[in-house]
């Protein structure tokens, strides 16, 4: 326990590193998955190849993907960019299907009304379809956030510092305190991400709180 109090600085630094290594890919992944998911919904023939294709990327175990990144990107093995790109790939893999299904769940009658009101396809997408898909997309984002926070810790094995470094540090010194601290910090960080997404989704969907139908 005293170890934790003596090393609050390190734990804080690792937590910040961990937070951005998990959060940045979440944003990049959402930005990439939105057009992909939209295309998969818009062009019916694309749905299966796009959703199945991105889904396959998620099957690749994290350590293997981290190690293969330099081969694809031409980076050094210790470069944090490897982790960011790999985590972005996982996020896209999880979110493409979510975005496609979320857009697909918008009632046809709503789309017909929006069209009848004179909204073009682009305005309809940004002002009607995407806002209505927010609850589904947020649910997918919560899964991706928790998964990202957990997977990033594996990057300690390729020498990228974050909370996972507490695991390797503790294990090689045969000392449990850092491992416990790392586990707790990871879970707290995952809960924090979850909370932020829930709050953002609530703010983006004010009509769901007034009791009126969307």
């Amino acid at each position, binding site marked *: 326990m005293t170890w934790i109090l003596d090393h609050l600085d390190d734990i804080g630094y690792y937590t910040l590193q961990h937070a951005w290594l998990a959060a940045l890919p979440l944003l990049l992944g959402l930005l990439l998955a939105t057009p992909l998911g939209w295309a998969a919904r818009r062009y019916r023939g694309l749905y299966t190849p796009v959703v199945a294709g991105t889904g*396959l990327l*998620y*099957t*690749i*175990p*994290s*350590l*293997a*993907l981290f*190690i*293969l990144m*330099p*081969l694809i990107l031409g980076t050094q*093995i210790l470069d944090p960019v490897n982790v960011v790109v790999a985590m972005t790939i996982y996020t896209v893999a999880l979110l493409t299907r979510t975005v496609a299904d979320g857009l697909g769940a918008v*009632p*046809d*009658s709503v789309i*017909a009304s929006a069209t009848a009101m004179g909204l073009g396809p682009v305005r309809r997408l940004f002002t009607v379809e995407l806002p209505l898909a927010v609850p589904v997309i947020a649910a997918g984002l919560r899964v991706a956030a*928790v*998964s990202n*926070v*957990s*997977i990033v*810790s*594996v990057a*300690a*094995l*390729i020498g990228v510092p974050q*909370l*996972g470094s*507490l*695991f*390797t540090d*503790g*294990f090689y010194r*045969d000392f*449990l305190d850092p*491992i*416990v601290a*790392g*586990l707790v910090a*990871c*879970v707290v960080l*995952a*809960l924090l991400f979850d909370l932020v997404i829930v709050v953002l989704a609530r703010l983006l969907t004010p009509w769901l709180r007034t009791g009126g139908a969307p």
Partner: protein
Amino acid sequence: MNDVLKWLTDGAHWRGGEGIPLRLGEHLLYSGLALLVAAVLAVPLGLWVGHTGRGRYLAVNVSGGLRAVPSLGLLFAAIMLLGPRLSGEAGVFIPSELVLVVLAVPPILAGAYAGVEQVDAAARDAARGMGMRGWQVLWQVEVPNAMPLVISGLRSAALQVVATATLAATVGLGGLGRFLIDGLSVRDYAQMAGGAVLVAALALLVDLLGATLQRLVVSPGVTGQTGRSTARTRRGGRLRLALRS
């Protein structure tokens, strides 16, 4: 890239006590055993939770909460806590297997209870109305309808186990992870990337196998033509309604 290919095609890496076939066998053994134990525990429990609705709150939260726990930390903690109490090989093998089982249970449990839970209440009522007892409803109506989600839970669990078994090489277990971890420690990129290619290929194969299994065991009444055409009719109906109003 060439070095990685050279490493993968070098005959010497495909033979002997540290060769690729043996490591692959170890990997399959660790993963298969953990998946089997987890399935035996979690499938009946999940079906029971879905069927009775009892313990649902607990099942949801345990399976959700465990997802946030990083597997690497869990693995190290298990080895340090249990390892010293066990002798020799078992000190690594048993804690690692235990962690693999713990990580495989949540997705299987979630798949099984969600599968039973999403069964159409009308189908369940109809079965009861036909005079089926609880067991018959479960076995003849709920389980076949739950199959797609049960199998998809097993598939996520299998991927989780194959990935975590790779990490177990850090604590001294065998398996394909050895190439990645040994390559990292001596900075032999060809070896670690070659191992990574093998691990990725194994994971893809396992998922493909799961997809095939899903096609074989799921009743055509659940996924087949009938289901699809009703969905289409329903959507068509809604559209017609929208156009009329």
